């Protein structure tokens, strides 16, 4: 697609981001993280449904970035982990290591039913348990998969925007 077409389409669709209601409930996060929250996403064994929703939460329509949240490449750069899926046996150690690599103050957000309580995978032979069984969880986002607005509400609760 050549540059002219790109310009034209950019010009046609001005802004697709939907306005959201001012955030009501401010769930308490560490006060350092007000206004700026970098997250490292860890897929502990998800079906990738939650990944899609996270992607769209940070996509143009929901645009979580406007509330000061951003996905980063390294837990060293992150303030918290965005964990999806039930924790499988292969991912238990990496999940712990990833949390260890994250500098304090840090939070863990469990995204989706599987992350909260293993969902349909409860008792599966390859499953260690929910995220809470492996690492301490600060915030949980239920739903299978959770709606992007739900994810964004949780993030806004921490960034207080």
């Amino acid at each position, binding site marked *: 697609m050549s540059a002219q077409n790109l310009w034209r389409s950019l010009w046609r669709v001005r802004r697709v981001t939907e306005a959201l209601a001012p955030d009501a409930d401010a769930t308490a996060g560490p006060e350092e993280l007000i206004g700026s929250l970098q997250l490292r996403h860890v897929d502990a064994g998800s079906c990738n449904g939650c990944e899609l929703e996270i992607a769209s939460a940070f996509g143009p329509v929901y645009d979580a970035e406007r509330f000061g949240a951003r996905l980063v490449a390294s837990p*060293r750069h992150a303030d918290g982990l965005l964990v999806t899926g039930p924790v499988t046996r292969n991912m238990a150690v*990496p*999940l712990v290591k*990833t949390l*260890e690599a994250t500098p304090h103050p840090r939070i863990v957000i469990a995204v989706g039913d599987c992350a909260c309580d293993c969902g349909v995978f409860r008792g599966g032979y390859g499953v260690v348990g929910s995220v809470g069984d492996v690492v301490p969880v600060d915030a949980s986002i239920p739903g299978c998969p959770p709606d992007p607005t739900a994810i964004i509400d949780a993030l806004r609760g921490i960034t207080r925007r």
Partner: protein
Amino acid sequence: MTAASLVVSGAVLGLTAGVGGATLPRRSRVAVGAVLVWGACALEAVAAIHVLVSGHRVVLHSAELLPFTGVNLVLTPLGAFFVLLVAMVAVPATLHGIGYAHHGLDSRMAAFAVPIFVTVLLLVPAAGSVATFMVLWELMALTSLSLVLVDHGRREATRSAGTWYAVITHIGAAAILTAFLILAAHSGGQSFAALRLHARHLAPVVRALVFVLALVGFGSKAGVVPFHVWLPKAHPEAPSPVSALMSGAMVALGVYGIILVGDVILGGGSLWWWLVVLALGAVSALFGSLHAASSTDMKRLLAYSTTDNVGLALIGLGASGLFDATRHPQLAALGLVAALVLLLNHAAFKGALFLSAGSVQSATGTRDLDQLGGLLRRMPQTGALFLGAAAAICALPPLNGFIGEWLLFQSLLHGADIGNTAGEIAIPLAVAAMALTAGLTVVAFVKAAGIGFLGRPRSEGADAAVEVPGTMRLAVGLLVGVCVVLGVVPTLVLPAVERAVRAVLPRVAPLSLAHGVDLQLVGLRGVLEPAALAAAMAGALFGLGALRRALARRPAPRVAEAWGCGRQLQTARMQYTATSFAEPVQRVFDDVLRPVQDLDVSHVAESRYFIEAVTFHNAVDDGIERGLYRPVIGAVRRWGQVARQLQPGSVHRYLAYGLGALVIVLTALTVIR
């Protein structure tokens, strides 16, 4: 005590050191020899400083010392500069040698050869006549060769390196001798003064021939492409203090020879000579830095980077000659100053690098970067000093390498519009070559420092390494200290350098580069304030360090496992190696380097989807050696085979040859009569 007697007593002291080294018991011989050598260096250095300060040359003639010709020593300001350069390297090198002795330096042979080598290095720049010069030059070649061969008993590589060095250095000596003989034939005496007097009246062709011969001869000693092939062989095999002496001092004397013949004796010359020098310099710089960036043996890397630094010096020298030939004396002087400063800097940091490479080798037992790693934690001081020297050679301010490159760049910059087409074309290309060289040098030495001293150890040897004895660290520390001083207050030495330059180019008005602690090009617009720059950097560094401590809520860092994407185990094999670090450069310059690579993957018997082992082999050999020298060697060997037909080993055949020869001679005589 006059300067002349200083020179003599220095020489005597050096020779005594050699004798002492040969006679004393094994325990003490190296140390005593070193101490005596320091005395010699000190005496010669004092004489040199006297010459540079007073500007009067020291002349010394003794008819009986050498049969037929006599010894003829003349210490000019230019020579004095090189004497100081040699002394600066020799003292730390011999000091380092005390700790390094058990690597072969304490053999009777080596203990004799090292002091003689140093003494000869100190005397070569003071040689005042062809005979004296050639004798000293050959002594230098022989002693250094014997030192390269110290380890010949154990390693085949050493023997081949010795052969290469011997052959190339003697071809070079032959060229030099021919050049001098041509000059001497046309002039009355054989002293350089006489040569210089009569060289003016030679036919241009003869002058050109002399210059080219000298360029070949001295270039082969200076490791200029295409005569560089012996460096990456001989420097790694020689004991490290010797490598430091050869790379820091002896190679610089090669450039001294080019200046001696080209500028002093022939007094400049036509434009194309210096364009050739410039081109050779640019090619050497690029070729050397490219191979340094892609080689994985630490001392081989250093050897190639020697070629690269000599190339930079030759760019300065060539530019100087270019400007001199186009009647820009001021620029010519600046170019020559740049060349000399580059050589001085190179002696300092390359000496330090070779010595610390020796420390690493004696601590870990290997020079292969792919076997090293994590040494900064195990050898903190040696590691820090190596990093400092590496920063200096990368021309990072406020260290000395930067000053040299700045001077070179300024001389090229102001010569960019000299109104001569060839020059105007050559200069941008020279700048480009210099720039790419600088960049590749950074690649090479970030690789050497990062792979060798940082990260995790890649072998048991590296893991078990411990810090080397204090003398070795002190030796390296001295040279790194010189790097810092020359970088922060270069104005300490610049007047001396200018004195040397003005002795070479008499019609130059004083440059007076040194303005207090600043560098200022008189008549040209270029100023550098190294001291102020260094002060500002230091201030900013400490200020910001304090700022970080003040701002950080939790100042004490938590030690955590390195982030390996949550991998279960994290081993040294997961790091980049020197080979993989150099891969991008190697790939970009594929056509030049022509790396030989083979990759074979072996699968397990059950299924091709499971790989048992992957072996990758990558070798970059010297293209010029492959393309230029190997064919010649092959041809020589074939002729040798032919000649062997004459040697069946039967006595009667040999007697028959004798008879046949006699008969032929007699018949020839009768025919002629």
